[in-house]
């Protein structure tokens, strides 16, 4: 049994939840922050042969600090291959080689659809967001999509205001109907309160594990749809000692991950 130190912060737990979804040998497209942290924890623990890439054109980078963007200078020296979007998003992702993709969203709905375009009406938005970037192709084409979200009734939604990136779209059969590749789609939503899985029949997100410090009831209340609960629901395993060690000693000695606490990931 692993030791589980208690002095972790929520973003560290969430990164570990992501890491545990990655298998050895997986080809993973990562962004920055959580996803990069999660993928690297996996690489330094149970998945040393995971292959990491950034959409900007970088494969198997060896950054000496956590990258602050997918185009960060620290991704260049030491990478195994550097090219461009055409290679990473075209040749690797659309080419069918990417096993795992990470996505975050301002709004995520019960089918794992993601909005990073607008809050409110598209033509007269309350808030204009960045747009798709690589999110739509990752959500369309990666075999297993891991979604990061804040857990409240505003960020989670019955239905997103604007569907930038497909999850299961309108539910069972939707991805197939639209011709998205078989065996692709969201795997989990990792929030600051829980890990939600997707029901294989209904394609709806359901409660799989709740994080230490919260409860099934609290998570259900914070979720704006009628959240189903797994029969074997249980508490999320906290960060293991070796996971924290990798994060704090190798990947992020300055603990830049704490910035996520100020963004509400508590």
């Amino acid at each position, binding site marked *: 049994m692993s030791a589980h130190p208690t002095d972790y912060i929520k973003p560290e737990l969430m990164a570990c939840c992501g890491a545990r979804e990655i298998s050895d040998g997986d080809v993973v497209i990562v962004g920055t922050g959580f996803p990069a942290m999660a993928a690297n924890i996996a690489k330094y623990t149970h998945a040393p042969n995971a292959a990491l890439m950034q959409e900007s054109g970088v494969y198997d980078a060896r950054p000496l600090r956590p990258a602050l963007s997918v185009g960060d200078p620290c991704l260049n020296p030491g990478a195994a291959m550097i090219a461009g979007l*055409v290679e990473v998003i075209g040749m690797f992702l659309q080419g069918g080689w990417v096993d795992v993709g990470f996505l975050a969203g301002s709004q995520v709905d019960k089918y794992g659809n993601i909005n990073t375009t607008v809050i409110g009406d598209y033509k007269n938005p309350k808030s204009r967001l960045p747009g798709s970037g*690589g999110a739509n192709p990752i959500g369309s084409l990666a075999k297993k999509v891991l979604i990061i979200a804040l857990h409240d009734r505003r960020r989670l939604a019955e239905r997103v205001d604007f569907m930038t990136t497909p999850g299961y779209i309108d539910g069972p059969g939707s991805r197939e109907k639209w011709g998205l590749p078989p065996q692709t789609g969201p795997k989990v939503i990792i929030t600051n309160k829980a890990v939600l899985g997707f029901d294989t029949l209904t394609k709806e997100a359901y409660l799989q594990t709740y994080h230490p410090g919260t409860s099934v009831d609290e998570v259900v209340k914070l979720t704006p749809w009628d959240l189903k609960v797994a029969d074997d629901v249980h508490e999320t395993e906290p960060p293991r000692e070796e996971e924290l060690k990798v994060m704090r000693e190798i990947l992020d000695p300055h603990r830049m991950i704490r910035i996520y606490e100020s963004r509400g990931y508590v």
Partner: protein
Amino acid sequence: MGKVMSMKEAIERHVHNGQFLFIGGYICRTPFAAIHEILRQKKKDLTITRSNAADDFDMMIGAGAVSRFISTFLSLGVYGLGRCYRRSIEKGIPHRIELEEYTNLSLPMMLMAGAMGMPFVPVKDMVGTDLLNIKSFMGEGKYKIIESPFDGTRTVLVPALKPDLAIIHVQQADKHGNAQMWGIGGDCKVGANAAKKVIVSCERLVSRETVGKDPSRTIVPDFKVVAVVEEPFGAHPGYTPGFYDVDFAFGSLYQKSSDTVQGFENFMNEWVYGIADRTAYTQHYIERFGYGAFKKLQAGFDYGYPVSYAY
């Protein structure tokens, strides 16, 4: 007539109101010197494109130079949403730009199609989402859905893009315009080659012989290039691999300034409108933040190994 000229000349001669511009970069090699000059010369009504836009596109929008944006994404990265971009879309300040929205798969593919003389390309993304429901200035030409004549599968086709002009910043180029680059590419190679002409901004002008020592690094051949500008520090506050680091502090300054219309105006007066050229910009940077800060941005020494093409 030679192609080597000042940025002022290059922009005067080759950027015209109403044009469609591809502007390369991905935090890496953003052609900021060229963008500042475009804004100093008050160019208007531009259509701009690139996958993953950032502070440079935000600034062009804030300065009122842009009418249309073929986009995938715009943000200030760690500094959050693009302030000018939001004000334009949400409040029409200084005016509301028109957006045609794609993704980081479809847009690079459209530029690739433009570069390779293909009328359109099939892409596998966007289906099932609202990205297919919104059409703007490209109208019904934004995409088409067909049944594949090979197997009947429903297939999305997106059209080739052929910008009037591309502006890119690279590590080195010769006086003819052969442009060489290494490190993160974004959609720079396909975007530059899709355009009818190219302005190359570079950290250093090198001889044709130097280019010939490593021709596999060339991404654009000279016959596409109409102007070559040697512009060291030309991508700041972005970075150029092997030359200088990204300037996070300056990124923060831009974000804070652009939080308000007045702040943005002040920033533009100080760093763009009141500045003659990139030399004056660099001098102002050193005076304002100190030579130590400037020096700290300079790249470390981490050279690789030479190769030979001999036989």
